């Protein structure tokens, strides 16, 4: 009895030592091959999927030099927070963050920072961007301005608009609205008739805009969707009401495939958010921190690779990816590119 206990203990000790050795070995192997965790909003919206696909096709991820793990935040701030804890305890070399919530995102980043894990922001923001090592995004206030201006100009600078808002409290909603409101000041003859959230959802926007068109017959001259999905829903509502979409300007942001197709038909306006640049640029920035100053970035968006965005040795805190207005001239090329994404 005593003997068997002893044996068992010895075995357990041996096993423990073995596991520890394995863990050390694994940690050692990791030092040579950087591991990056990407905590994204969700993997069931098109933009996030495009982002993740772009991240996975970063040249260094593709050839196996870098290991990338994409974690699906399921549109939930708490899920993302838990994923941060996992990434920290698993000792990832860097975390790329596309936060769900502008404020709830601060705390996990702070924890990563305290644990010495660099965090790079991408796409959407947290309110305290000082916590980031660097962040790369497109300026959503700018998007709001482009969006509003495109609709207001097509309305001839006067008339009534309705605004379909994104999920309240997310940085894209907050900042795009800020841009829309700033633009409204330059157009004193534009009146906002209605303004309400459809939670980024096409089906919700469809019902909402149908109801608005009923509430204000022949009084809505323009429709602003804070993203493309909702703008497409609005467009369908316009058509379902028997109205001519070419006479009621509808615009959205993101450049999702359906929006590109609608632009091609001349039924709406959209502005493309460059998922490739934001995703691959973020990986470059992360590797810049991990590998040091002599790291050579791979994404096409950087000036060193012939793009429009200055790399500057990866030393900047903030990188702003330019918006691409979708027009009749570039829509074919964008659609062709989408097929490869």
């Amino acid at each position, binding site marked *: 009895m005593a003997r068997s206990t002893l044996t068992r203990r010895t075995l357990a000790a041996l096993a423990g030592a073995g596991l520890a050795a394995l863990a050390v070995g694994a940690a050692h192997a990791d030092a040579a091959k950087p591991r990056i965790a990407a905590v994204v909003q969700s*993997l*069931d*919206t*098109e933009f*996030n*999927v*495009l982002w993740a696909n772009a991240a996975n096709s970063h040249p260094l991820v593709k050839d196996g030099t870098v290991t990338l793990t994409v974690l699906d935040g399921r549109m939930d701030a708490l899920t993302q927070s838990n994923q941060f804890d996992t990434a920290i305890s698993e000792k990832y070399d860097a975390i790329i963050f596309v936060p769900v919530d502008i404020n709830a995102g601060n705390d996990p980043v702070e924890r990563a920072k305290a644990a010495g894990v660099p965090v790079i922001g991408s796409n959407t923001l947290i309110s305290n961007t000082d916590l980031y090592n660097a962040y790369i995004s497109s300026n959503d206030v700018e998007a709001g301005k482009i969006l509003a201006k495109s609709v207001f100009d097509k309305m001839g600078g006067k008339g009534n608009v309705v605004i379909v808002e994104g999920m309240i409290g997310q940085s894209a909603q907050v900042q795009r609205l800020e841009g829309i409101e700033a633009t409204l000041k330059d157009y004193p003859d534009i009146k906002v008739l*209605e303004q*309400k*959230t459809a939670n980024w*959802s*096409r*089906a919700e926007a*469809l*019902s*909402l805009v*149908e*109801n*608005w068109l*009923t*509430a204000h*017959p022949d009084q809505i001259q323009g429709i602003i969707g804070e993203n493309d999905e909702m703008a*497409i*829903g609005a467009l*369908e509502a316009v*058509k*379902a*009401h028997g109205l001519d979409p070419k006479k009621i300007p509808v615009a959205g942001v993101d450049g*999702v*495939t*359906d929006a590109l*197709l609608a632009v091609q038909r001349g039924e709406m306006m959209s502005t493309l958010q460059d998922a490739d640049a934001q995703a691959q640029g973020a990986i470059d920035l992360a590797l810049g921190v991990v590998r040091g100053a002599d790291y050579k970035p791979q994404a096409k968006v950087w000036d060193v690779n012939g793009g429009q965005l200055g790399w500057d040795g990866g030393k900047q805190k903030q990188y702003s990816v330019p918006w691409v207005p979708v027009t009749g001239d570039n829509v074919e090329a964008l659609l062709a590119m989408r097929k490869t994404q």
Partner: protein
Amino acid sequence: MSDLSASTVSADTRGRALGRFLSRYGILISFLILFVILSFAHPNFLSTGNITNVLRQVSINGILAIGMTFVILTGGIDLSVGSTLAVAGVVAGSLVTGGEPFNPAVAFLAAIVVGGLVGTVNGTLVARFGVPAFVATLGMLSMARGATLLYSDGRPIPNLSPAFRWLGQGFVAGVPVPVIIFLAVFVVAWIVLRFTVYGRWVYAVGGNVKSARTAGIPTRSVIFSVYLLMGALAGLAGAILTARTTSALPQAGLGYELDAIAAVVIGGTSLTGGLGSVGYTLIGALIIGIISNGLDLMGVSSYYQQVIKGAIIVVAVLVDRSRHMNP
């Protein structure tokens, strides 16, 4: 003295009669009151265009709620309908995208078959293996959503053929196609529940499984069949939603199970089974529909809509309880 007691008795009877009247027609009366209020509150509420709108907006939840009525009548529940709708939608969408040669009717049928397959799994788990319906369909809610995302790669499937989209956007004699489908489903469901042996079995199983079995009713088959029906109807709703939004959306139908259950509960169908009707479910679905339409028309924040919808569900269940206690 005798006069007094007589008047007490008659007051009591009157009270009971009123109670019975209210529990029987309460939902209908609430609906009519709501309808009249909204008609006065906004000039366009009663316009033909708006009524058409509301009916079209209600049709998807209405179809789900009709299936859910069958499930709840047997004392079950199906939480997977939103995900079932989505998986059926992307399968249908994939058959009619980019000028594919598939007949839209084939895509529509495919959606119903996919939904039916999901329902078959649910029904087998519940009826054959005795897994609690809540658990089985909760698992399916997650599995079917995952399957949707896998199948569609998490992206909308665009470019659906115009003939397919007609099923969501078209009209026949001024009536939207989804409304026609919805009403057809309703009429058939109403007849089945009211006039067929199968309909009586559904009520009997929900009322008391043991005595139903003793009476020779194939209880397992009946329970299996309601999940199959629910799945097929969710597939049908998925095809309509897809045709309506012009793309198959992988995130379609999130939370739709709650609206479907709400319509059934507001309609007074008992969650313990055996009591209720699709007629009242129809009114429940209409109540949810006109509230959200009416509040949109009046420009009320969507936050209030959620509060109001929740309050109505609770009140409906309270009425339902009083009916049980005071038969």
